[in-house]
């Protein structure tokens, strides 16, 4: 008589026996849940770093909070106060001016410069590109110092030149409210035109040459070719530039902050500076959050309208 063969491993007992008998919950749902697990990192990060801050911002906007202790719920009072705050409306007017100027002057200027840089046979093309792009990479602190000296009332280069050329040089560029706004928009023009030029230049280099040749054969001159060939071909690039410029200029901070700190008085104060001032100079964090929510809504709505008007991301 032979004994039965000894199993090589012991039969599972206890919990492992149950596991062997019925597949675990994870094994049963693995196939259905796996895709969600794979995409979960994005949603976790999106929720943690975007949705949560937005939610906290909305909550803070309905509170009064100096930074320490428990925020005190005030409902919509911060929004009501904003509606009657003359400083806030000053900042809205100034920001609107910056946006309109950027859209109407900086964007067209960038397009024209790109057109010039794209011309055939242009000598020193790379030098021009470098020169136009340089303002973007120069430290804002250096820019503020240099512009402060250039536009100084008493010792400034601009007033010196005006004095030498025309016999008058008493323009108070940084001390007069109207001229201070002009100085800020000049800085915006100088700083961002070259950057936007790069986008238009990339777009221009993708316009098929055949279109220009066909237009020339049809008798179109340079101006007609620009209007009939260049502009329609650049429409996607123009739309992208216009929308991004609109959104970024609505949040303008650096230029007025560095050049005039929002002054003289509040004449160059932007909405982003207003928010910074309320939050980090006056410790009115709830009030700053309310202004931030309003800025977000306005930028979102105008950005959406601009995208629809310019048909960004839609098939031609």
């Amino acid at each position: 008589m032979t004994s039965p063969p000894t199993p090589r491993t012991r039969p599972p007992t206890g919990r492992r026996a149950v596991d062997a008998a019925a597949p675990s919950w994870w094994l049963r749902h693995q196939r259905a849940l796996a895709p969600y697990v794979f995409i979960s990192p994005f949603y976790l990060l999106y929720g943690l770093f975007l949705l949560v801050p937005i939610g906290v911002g909305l909550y803070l906007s309905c509170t009064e909070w100096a930074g320490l202790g428990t925020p005190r719920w005030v409902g919509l009072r911060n929004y009501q106060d904003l509606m009657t705050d003359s400083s806030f409306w000053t900042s809205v007017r100034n920001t609107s001016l910056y946006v309109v100027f950027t859209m109407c002057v900086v964007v067209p200027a960038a397009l024209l410069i790109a057109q010039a840089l794209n011309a055939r046979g242009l000598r020193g093309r790379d030098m021009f590109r470098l020169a136009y792009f340089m303002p973007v990479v120069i430290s804002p602190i250096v820019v503020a110092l240099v512009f402060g000296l250039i536009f100084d009332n008493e010792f400034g280069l601009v007033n010196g030149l005006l004095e030498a050329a025309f016999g008058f040089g008493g323009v108070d560029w940084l001390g007069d409210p109207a001229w201070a706004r002009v100085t800020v928009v000049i800085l915006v023009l100088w700083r961002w035109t070259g950057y936007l030029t790069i986008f238009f230049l990339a777009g221009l280099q993708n316009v098929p040459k055949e279109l220009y040749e066909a237009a020339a054969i049809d008798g179109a001159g340079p101006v007609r070719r620009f209007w009939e060939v260049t502009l329609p071909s650049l429409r996607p690039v123009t739309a992208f530039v216009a929308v991004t410029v609109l959104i970024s200029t609505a949040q303008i901070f650096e230029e007025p902050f560095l050049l005039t700190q929002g002054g003289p008085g509040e004449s160059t104060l932007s909405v982003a500076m207003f928010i910074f001032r309320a939050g980090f100079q006056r410790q009115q964090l709830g009030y700053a959050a309310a202004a931030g929510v309003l800025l977000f809504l306005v930028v979102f709505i105008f950005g959406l309208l601009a995208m629809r008007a310019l048909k960004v991301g839609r098939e031609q």
Partner: protein
Amino acid sequence: MADLGSVSRRALLRGGTGLGLGLLAAPALAGCGPASSTPVDSGPVDISLWTHDPGYITTFETAVAETALMRGSRFDFGVDITNAAPSDVVTRMIAQAVADGDTPDLAGIVIDQFPRVMVPGIAEHLFTDLTETVEPFGDDLLKLAPYTVDGVPYGLDSDNSITVYYYRQDLFEEHGVPEDIETWEELAEHGERLNVDSRISLGMVATGDNGSIVNGFLQFLLQRGGGVFDEHGEIMLQSAEAVEVLDFMARGVSSGFLLALPDPYGSACAAALKSGRLAATAMPNWYNAYGLQANVPDQAGRWRMRTLPRFSGGGHIASTMGGTAFTVLKGKARSTAALELLRRVYLTREGQLLRYRSGGYLPTLRSLYEDPELRSIEDEFLGQRVFDVYRRATDDLPLFHQDAGMQILTDVLGGPVLDALKGRTSPAAAIEDGLSAYRQQVKR
């Protein structure tokens, strides 16, 4: 002993991964939590110090190494320095406090940032009450007022920030301006003449950002005997003195006696100093190093200083502008040690002398202005015994009080004051406009 044979390879790997992640996360999580709060009562201690000014870094590093200053202390001090911009010191400190994170033990807060912590609920929660620490010094300790909230002092200033009158002695002699002139009004007459004859101004006003504009105005206003807030935090700007001072400044700008510059430190001011266009200015003691020596080192020996000319209507022979208070964060393991360090460096004769030697910070103990060692110091740039001037000024120094609303007042007053300086509005209307905007905004 556990039966390792029953553990599958997958379970082992999972366990290992979990353990590894746990070990990695532990220090990170520990770093995010608050530091140990077991009080340090003696022995070696590294005081965490946040400041904006490299001068304070030198001061504290020198102080902890000074045997005589630290003699008898039960602590063996070291300092762990964090250098940040003035506004960032406050912003990050509050952010760390909210997150229950690692706040500094000692924080240097610039005077114009201090109103941020005067908002209800911040200073009393963050800082150690210094009442008992300063009590023995009584009136001998100067400049507590700007850092007092509801009667409780929370900071000790590093510098007395005495405003004096710096002037180019050579140009005064050349153009016949008496060095010992009595009043601003007399000086203004000479200034007007000098501007017409030689385009030279005998003072400056700031026309740049709101902070500079209001500080310049406030400096004259304090000297005249006015102020912006009283000791209870009530606004007191609507005064005859305020209108008179602004009118004096506006007329000075109009006549050329006072030169309008964006700020007293920038490139335009440097150009004015270098060219001799600006031959004098009323600025605090620290302007000697940060303004004159920094911009016109080649003019050493030509500049002198004296107490301010008086306003004929009354007031003081000195004023004050600027300062940085050091506060002790409360409820921390090293709070006692930090307070001990601050007391030794800021409230002893040896500490105050060390601060003057290491960073040029004027003593905040009135009695030290009679100290023979300080009285004998001759400033190399000015070529005179400066404490002869500072001693007289300290005896007649106005008090500066501020309040949580100071930042708002600065924002809303800057524009109207500038308008008055440029002749776009009257001084009285400018003060009224600023006050009206302040009341509207502070009501919120």
